[in-house]
């Protein structure tokens, strides 16, 4: 049951962070060394309300880029245990929280992911305006938290902060902070709704997004995307793996044995379906031989209605990272622009 609470001001949020940090490692997004990324933070430093969403997503906290699964030495074979300690991601954005909820479903039966996930407290800070290149609103993934969070904070125009607890863990934190919690609809909920509407109004109109998605799904009245269109996009894919690495919902991995017969590790790495070798079969046959076929498959996985029954939503949360990192200028907005703006 969702519960609402009022924090007097930003200082009250900082004291909430100190309370959280008593029992958990506190990770926040900070600007450092010419970059913006998640890092362990000292709660004594004030929260950075202005920092943009980082290029790396938060998926590495649950699904590390390199992870040892098993170790062997001579005739012993042992699972490499997950050693998780309680931590908090404080200041996750709505898009990434939505992606986390998506990955929770994908990894529902992955004990390593779930072990880390159990130790995490997710505190979303709602976005009050569209970020550069973000289109979470069109993808139903923001700018305010809708899924994948324990606690969401909204900075209101009058300086108060509305807190929404979605889980017991969220309510426990509010209780520890001795903040009065009110269930259900209230004046505070109405204020948060108003802030959400104001934030949504900052998104520029982009009708090509819906038009492009309609074409990918071959909806009535939408012209299907031809092979030729996908193949025209293909040469722009350099198979760099940037989109799949940064995408908060991409979850493909490759399992590799490293070492020899004496000892070694079975490791999983983040993989990428844009690599030619991802799907090449031992015979040399390739089910997606043209780079354009691989680009098509990637966007099919992100934007097809076929995956909605399993995941409850599309695989794209509109974070805009692929548009930044794609050296071929074929991130989500560019592809949807190319598909959706044609008559």
């Amino acid at each position, binding site marked *: 049951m969702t519960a609402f609470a009022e924090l007097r001001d930003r200082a009250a949020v900082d004291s909430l962070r100190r309370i959280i940090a008593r029992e958990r490692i506190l990770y926040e997004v900070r600007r450092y*060394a*010419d*970059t*913006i*990324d998640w890092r362990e933070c000292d709660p004594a430093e004030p929260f950075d309300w202005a920092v943009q969403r980082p*290029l*790396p997503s938060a998926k*590495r906290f649950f699904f*590390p*880029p*390199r992870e040892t699964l098993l170790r062997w030495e001579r005739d012993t074979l042992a699972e490499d245990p997950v050693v998780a300690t309680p931590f908090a991601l404080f200041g996750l954005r709505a898009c990434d929280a939505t992606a986390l909820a998506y990955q929770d479903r994908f990894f529902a039966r992955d004990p390593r992911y779930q072990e880390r996930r159990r130790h995490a407290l997710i505190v979303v800070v709602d976005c009050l305006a569209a970020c550069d290149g973000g289109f979470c609103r069109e993808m139903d993934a923001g700018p305010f938290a809708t899924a994948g969070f324990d606690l969401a904070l909204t900075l209101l125009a009058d300086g108060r902060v509305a807190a929404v607890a979605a889980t017991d863990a969220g309510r426990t934190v509010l209780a520890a902070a001795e903040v009065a919690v009110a269930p259900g609809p209230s004046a505070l909920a109405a204020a948060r709704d108003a802030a959400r509407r104001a934030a949504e109004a900052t998104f520029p109109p982009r009708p090509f997004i819906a038009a492009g998605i309609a074409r990918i799904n071959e909806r009535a009245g939408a012209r299907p995307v031809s092979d030729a269109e996908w193949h025209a996009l293909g*040469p*722009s894919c*350099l*198979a*760099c*793996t*940037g989109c799949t*690495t*940064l995408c908060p919902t991409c979850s493909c991995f*490759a399992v*590799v044995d*490293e*070492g*020899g017969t004496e000892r070694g590790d079975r490791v999983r*790495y*983040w*993989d*990428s379906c844009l*690599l*030619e*070798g*991802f799907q*090449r079969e031992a015979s*040399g046959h390739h089910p997606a031989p043209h780079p354009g076929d691989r680009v098509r498959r990637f966007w099919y996985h992100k934007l097809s209605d076929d995956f909605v029954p399993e995941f409850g939503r599309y695989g794209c949360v509109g974070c805009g990272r692929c548009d*930044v*990192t*794609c*050296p*071929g*200028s074929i991130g989500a907005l*560019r592809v949807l622009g190319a598909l959706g703006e044609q008559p």
Partner: protein
Amino acid sequence: VCPFCGVGCGLVLGVEAGRVTDVRPQAAHPASRGQLCAKGWNAEKFLRDPERLTTPLIRRDGRLAPASWEEALAVAADGLRAALDEAGPDAVGVISSARATNEDNFAAMRFARAVLGTNNVDHCARVCHAPSVAGLSRTIGSGAMTNSIADVGRADLLLVVGSDTTENHPIIGSHLLSARARGVPMIVIDPRRTRLARMADLHLQLRLGTDIPLVNAMLHAIFASGWEALDYLAARGENVDALRAAVADWPPDRAARVTDVPAAAIVEGARRYATTPQACLLYGLGVTQHVCGTENVIAYSNLALATGHVGVDGAGINPLRGQNNVQGACDMGALPDVLSGYQSVQDSAARAKFTTAWGVELHDRPGLTTLGMQRAAREGALRALVLCGQDPVVTDPGQREVQRALRALDCLVVVELFLTETAKYADVVLPAASFAEKDGTFTSTERRVQRVRGAIEPPGACRPDWAILEAIATRLGRPMGFTSAEQIFAEIARLTPIYGGMTYARLDAHFGLQWPCWDVTHPGTAVLHQDRFPRGRGRLIPVGHTPPAEQPDLEYPLWLTTFRLQHVYGSGSMTRRAPLLERENPCGLLWIHPADAAACGVAEGTSVRIRSRRGEVTTRALVSDDVPPGTVAMPYHFAEAPPNLVTNDALDPISRMPELKVCAVAVERCA
């Protein structure tokens, strides 16, 4: 900063429990803008490879065996001292690494010149852009990229020559692709149908080794139609009439017969390039790795100068450097004829400055190049060699000759990350620290000097190159006194005017600085030669056609050229340890046109033997119209199928660049 090609992309290493777990891009970086190529995304994969060298090795009973630093340094120092005592300083040499930091290269340069007393110091630029340095020095006075990577985005036309940019410099390729997506016209000059060639408005698919006839015919059309930049040439050029007279011999229809490019296409390319004020020329090894490499560079320089495109925002003549720090290795004077900052060893004032700083007299005679040292080794004149981070057995032409040179040495000291094919010939192998394990600076292809910072401790006993050289110098009784990378950089800035205004603090405050940066208030230089050229006026130099040293004939009927794949770097000693990159490699390594494949009785995946006058190599065929009929192509990365068994080591007489891009071969099915 990424450790692979010369683009100099910014990256951040994720570290957990002393181990690098992943690579993250830098959104604000001026060159890479939050992007990386597949190599960059996998830059950490080799760091903890089980085959990484973590202890020194010395040769005992013919085999390399682990040793302590004390033992290994003693072997290295004794070997060098023996060669020095018996045959003098010309019998020793140092080959430095375009992969190592500026600090490492400066230390190698000082080690050769001040500790060993020889100008025998070089690095691998010999086999990539020595012709650029030689050619552009003659025409404008400086061999570096004249403009910045960001200028690609400001250009109104892009001319890409002999560069498979999206594969070899993918993030510069990204700037090209985004310009292309905005509708900026692109002309590609390349014998292969590269990705960019397929996207270009105009692809001039010239026959291998015919750049000069093509460019002369373009100039012919430019002068004939009055498209040259008359005011610019009057103010900034010289020797214009000589060029005008020389290219009169190359009407486009004559060039069409030599180059296979239709005359109309030659004229159209010339018109569009010449009449677009901001036209940016980028080129790669397809220009330089020829027996006429220096003259090829001069030809393209003539084209850029005649049309007024050098010293202009969004334009310029831009050699794309292949290695993360090949620009820096040149800047640091890891070259036989210049000290750091291109100060000639023959310039007594420059020598005096270094003599004052180092307390030793320096030789005024230029030393031997890499291939010169190899030849001297085969002839017995060179006895001992220190080789840092280079794998000439895989990457240099004429593999058997390289091996013979290495075997002939009395003492070979190799500083390496892995036991490369070259390191297997060493008497002592010293384990080096990688880019992630040391502080220093790299200088990217756009002259941007950027900091690298150690993210983790080196494994085992590994040390940075400069510290290894310092330890050998100390043992030879001539310590250099280097104790930190920052201290070396301060010495670089003191002795190298183009780096004069740089400090670690200033580099940290920005994403590096672009040289020249003369003093501590100078902001660095994005576009060179805006007001004048280093040599004064830009010189136009007529060049004639030099056909490749070897032509196809009945016995060897096909051209072979070499190229690079996007997912491998160099000899693969780093990238081939990344499982997902290794998975990308095709099973066949000989690209052959369908018509030639049919003529040779070869299909996709057929095992083939490629023979030349120098040797043979076996691989599988990959049938593709990326190559024109009559030309086959092989990537040079793979020790299991090295094209350098068959390539030609004929040299460019000016820069001593071997002609790696052309030789004549026969292709046959393996029985």
